[in-house]
């Protein structure tokens, strides 16, 4: 533990200084393959990548190019074959399974394409889940989640079950759930893929407004080119490798 903390402060000093925020995520030489023999697929072929705080980073590319795999490894829910992932100075690829689980609980918020809300819980209860995982009592957690849902325009739906909500509403609950414990990293996989165009734009607007903070990094994976312009930085992947990084913010300025 002492060694890790020492690494953290050292890394932090080295990582600072880039344009805008600090380096939040640093990925080096990331490799991941699935299957073996004939079925072997190289999903990630030595990825080097960085993400700054205060930015919305977008990973785009054709289906099957490895976006989800990269996001999963970064978020610490999938082990890589080689390479390192460093998040806020913590080399998560070196953590044990249980330490990584605790790291996720404390620092990472998730938004899934399929929402993945628990069908038996109300909107407010669903949004409260990360707080409950962090050890909060039910009432306090639900109260906090309700306040957040209210600010996302979901105040009238706190007691609704997921099957009583529209896709856009479910994704709002998912956003509340991803932010309720104020994580430093937010990962979103295809957050608009299951939504119609207009709802998708609304959800992206909400994400930009609510999620992007100076001390937080937001990574959105998408192949929906109608929302590309929401990204501060666009990382284009193909066949398990990064082919282009576009700084859209500077371009816009």
């Amino acid at each position, binding site marked *: 533990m002492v060694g890790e903390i020492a690494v953290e402060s050292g890394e932090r000093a080295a990582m600072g200084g880039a344009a805008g925020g600090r380096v939040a995520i640093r990925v080096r030489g990331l490799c991941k393959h699935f299957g073996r023999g004939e079925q072997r697929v190289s999903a990630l072929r030595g990825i080097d990548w960085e993400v700054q705080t205060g930015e919305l980073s977008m990973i785009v590319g054709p289906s099957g190019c490895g976006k989800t795999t990269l996001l*999963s490894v970064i978020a610490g*829910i*999938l082990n890589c074959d080689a390479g390192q992932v460093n998040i806020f100075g913590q080399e998560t690829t070196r953590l044990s399974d249980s330490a990584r689980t*605790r790291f996720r609980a404390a620092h990472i918020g*998730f938004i899934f394409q399929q929402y*993945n809300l*628990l069908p038996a*819980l109300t909107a407010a209860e669903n949004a409260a889940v990360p707080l409950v995982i962090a050890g909060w009592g039910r009432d306090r957690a639900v109260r906090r989640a309700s306040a957040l849902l209210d600010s996302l325009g979901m105040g009238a739906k706190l007691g609704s079950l997921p099957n009583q909500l529209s896709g856009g509403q479910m994704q709002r609950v998912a956003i509340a759930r991803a932010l309720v414990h104020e994580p430093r990293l937010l990962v979103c996989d295809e957050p608009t893929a299951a939504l119609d165009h207009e709802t998708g734009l609304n959800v992206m607007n909400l994400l930009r407004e609510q999620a992007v903070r100076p001390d937080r990094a937001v990574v959105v994976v998408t192949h929906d080119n109608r929302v590309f312009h929401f990204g501060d930085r666009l990382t284009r992947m193909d066949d398990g490798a990064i082919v282009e990084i576009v700084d859209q913010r500077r371009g816009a300025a």
Partner: protein
Amino acid sequence: MAWIAVKMLVGDRAKFLGIVLGLTFAALLITQQGSIFCGLMLRTCAQITDITGADLWVMDPSVRFIDDVKPMLESALYRVRGVEGVRWAVPLYKGQARAKINPNVAHGNEPTIIEQVVLLGLDDATLVGAPHPNKIYAGSLRDLRLPDAVMVDHSRLEKLYPKENWADLPRLGNAFYQRFLRRQFEMNDHRALIVGVCEATRTFQTNAVVYTTYSRAKNYAAQERKILSYILAKTEPGLAPQAVARRIETTTGLGARTSNQFLWMTIDYYLKYTGIPINFGITALLGFLVGTAIAGQTFYNFTIENLKQFAALKAMGATNGRIVGMILLQAVIVGFLGYGIGVGLAALFGLRTANTELAFFTPWQLLPVTAAAIVLICILSSMLSVQRVLRLEPAIVFR
């Protein structure tokens, strides 16, 4: 997290009910079959449990169970009385007799009824082994000392008096039995005068039980030369019946058992030499397997269907330990409900059948056994579920 586990569990009513029903079924089947089994086993030794007061049974050493009567010489009684630690010892006759009932005179020329009965001859002076006073429905025990007096078990009386208006019994209750007092029949050409109707615990045999005194039993069972079937004895206060039983064996060469030993000996005999335990064991086992299959399968399916939810919780940082805790809590809840409802239903079944021919006895030991079985089912099915969840890659949440 506990409340989330509970909400997940009861959230889907149909599945929740399915799991609970499966476990209920298993618990019901195990308790019910077990109770019938215990009831039957108790019947095998009803004549041991019916006899209170004495705590020792002395018999021919080769006797294996209660109905395995091997008469002893009368002198055995005096030898037992002479053993140190024996407070008193009295004879008991247990055998068969043939009752010949002349039909009710009022009914005219009916054919004579001949029925095999179980004859119990009680010590003339003490009547040790007689039915408990609150099990005497008509007449009185005192009258058993009248000449030719017998007392008859109510449950098979209908076989002896089929022409009686038995439909009146439910309405009249025990008053119905008054009419049999002072009636007569014959056993071995000797007159038998009914002075009482009582309740004897049912045995396997369908024969009526007839109580009389030991000395009179000699007349009724004339075909036998020796009629001392058992010696009922009481140990001196402060002595262990088991120790006295051993002393009787060594000093007299007879077999001596405490009531409890004799009871288990009889049950063991039936377990070993009849198909009863195997048949019931198989049914109870089938109940267990069917219950396991239904409950386990439903519970496992429930977890599998919730796999993505568990994966989402894992991704969001719930540790394996807490997710296992959630599954175990869910298993405990359904197990508890299934056990409670199942045992409750079995008890209802027992109450509903209390006054019928059905042997149904639920010893308290059966309840922990059933509980253990249900716990086992729950553990087995949740283990399957748990190992699926433990192997679960949280990355599937992005699929």
